[in-house]
């Protein structure tokens, strides 16, 4: 098969990767090939981490940070954070062929850092990750995201929401101006703690699992230099082929009211992209600077 001028050998296309839905690798590849135009813009300049499930989502998968040694020569790589302050070479998905190649490796999940490969010290985006502790669920995450949106608005910042494709929501705040990982993390934590103080029964910023029951954990630490977050439009290795899907604030408000679960599987996402285009496009271009406390 030829993709974008590159010859690709696709293998085991009929292998079922999502047994619950019977979704095959062929469909996974189809999804990534069709979502590539919008997804690639979100990940193309970044060294990405794969989470591969060669035996389907019912079997254990594994993280692959170091770009596969058996990659075709045209798959680009770039250095990124490694162990002990060293660097390792990550894959850079810079075209549809690379995305299809990753899909063929059953790299169902593609995780991306907040910084571009060319400037690892500067996050282009700040992320809030809302992770619900059962019985809290999407509605609570949506309320938390709306609360964060209000704080952001008070300091003149805008953010864009997406589902994690799992249980939670994420809010991306485009920066695209000079910033550091430490400042982004501090800011996210400050917002989180402010809201934690206002809504102590609903929100928390500490990771302690035991305290999370019924609360939404605002994970500010995803802004760390070495952290990656599930990429917009990436599939998730959940029982069903759900996708980390950009959503509108109206949808988030409906979810907050418990009207919408915001669960999108890959065919839904292709429909949405056709209808809305890339809801995350502003995340790539809008320039915003984090406020600095006086003194």
């Amino acid at each position, binding site marked *: 098969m030829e993709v974008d001028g590159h010859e690709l050998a696709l293998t085991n296309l009929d292998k079922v990767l999502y047994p619950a839905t019977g979704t095959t690798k062929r469909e996974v590849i189809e999804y990534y090939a069709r979502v590539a135009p919008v997804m690639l813009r979100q990940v193309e300049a970044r060294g990405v981490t794969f989470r591969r499930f060669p035996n389907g989502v019912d079997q254990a998968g594994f993280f692959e940070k170091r770009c596969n040694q058996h990659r075709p020569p045209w798959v680009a790589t770039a250095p990124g954070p490694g162990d002990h302050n060293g660097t390792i070479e990550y894959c850079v998905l810079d075209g549809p062929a690379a995305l299809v190649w990753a899909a063929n490796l059953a790299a169902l999940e593609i995780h991306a850092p907040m910084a571009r490969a060319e400037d690892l010290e500067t996050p282009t985006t700040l992320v809030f990750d809302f992770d619900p502790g059962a019985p809290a669920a999407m509605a609570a995450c949506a*309320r938390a995201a*709306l609360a964060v949106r209000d704080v952001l*608005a008070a300091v*003149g910042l805008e953010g864009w929401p997406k589902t994690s494709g799992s249980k939670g929501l994420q809010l991306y705040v485009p920066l695209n101006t000079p910033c550091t990982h430490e400042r982004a993390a501090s800011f996210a*934590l400050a917002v989180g703690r402010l809201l934690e103080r206002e809504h102590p029964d609903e929100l928390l910023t500490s*990771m302690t699992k035991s305290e999370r029951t019924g609360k939404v954990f605002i994970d500010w630490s995803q802004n760390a230099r070495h952290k990656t977050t599930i990429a917009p439009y990436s599939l998730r290795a959940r029982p069903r082929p759900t996708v980390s899907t950009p959503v509108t604030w109206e949808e988030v408000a409906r979810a907050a009211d418990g009207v919408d679960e915001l669960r999108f599987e890959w065919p839904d996402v292709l429909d949405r992209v056709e209808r809305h285009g890339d809801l995350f496009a502003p995340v790539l271009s809008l320039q915003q600077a984090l*406020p600095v406390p006086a003194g």
Partner: protein
Amino acid sequence: MPRPVWSGTISFGLVSIPVKLFHAVSRKNVSFNQLDDRSMSRIRLKKVAADTGEDVPDEHIVKGYEVTKGEYVVVDPDELEPFIPSATKAIDLEEFVDLADIDPVFYDTPYIVAPDKSAKPYVLLAKAMEEAGKVAVGTFVMRSKQYVAAVRPIDGRLMLSTMAFADEVVDPAGIDELDGIGDITVTKKELAMAEQLVESLAGDFEPERFRDSYREQVLELIEKKAAGETFETPEPAAAAPKVVDLMAALEASVKAAKEARGRHPAAVQAVPARRSKAAAQAEDDEDEAEARPAKKAARSRARKSA
């Protein structure tokens, strides 16, 4: 109550004495657990491939012996099986030697030997060895490993020490710094002075005089912390010290925005958590209008302090 680490018999000739072994030394290092300072979660180590960082499931982990740099011979547990000493449950005493014959370098881990069930044969052996001034050397198997051991009497009891094998003891001849020390001559006077110095410091061995002051200090610190800050877990703020300032600034901004909104008749809903779609929509429009100038302000502030 100490628990026995091994039980079996001491055998020699036709005699066999049921015994149990207990650790004679319990190490008192202060051990710390590794924690994530944000959540106090315990750190678990994962088995990953050194070259790719990928998780390696247990079924794929094999034993490899590095023959030369980077080259391994993989050995299957089945291949090792025939060599694993079978648990014989007996300490076979092979000979009785003088205590002074054993260089202390051979002694490894000490165990207390206690009688199991009937004490009489145990007492008899201990007394006989003490009278003869002898130490017994034998072999036994513990946890699938073969040991040489010395059994010695003390105060009517028996102690056992596992011992290093002869080929495990490092040959001092291999240490260059020791080369030629036999050729160095010392004068009688020098020797007399050195002996005098040694003599002046001579005393009885009082083990309790030597203490691990590091451990004691660490334990004291931990006790103080535990008493004073029992439930104090380091806050994430400790890692991000500027957060307090940031929070104050954010709080002021949020308050100002709420007040501005209060004056705005179109938007009455300030609480974000639950609101109708219409209100959300109204706020969206309002944010559009308000966000721009505020954003400019944020940007110029950022520049100023940069």
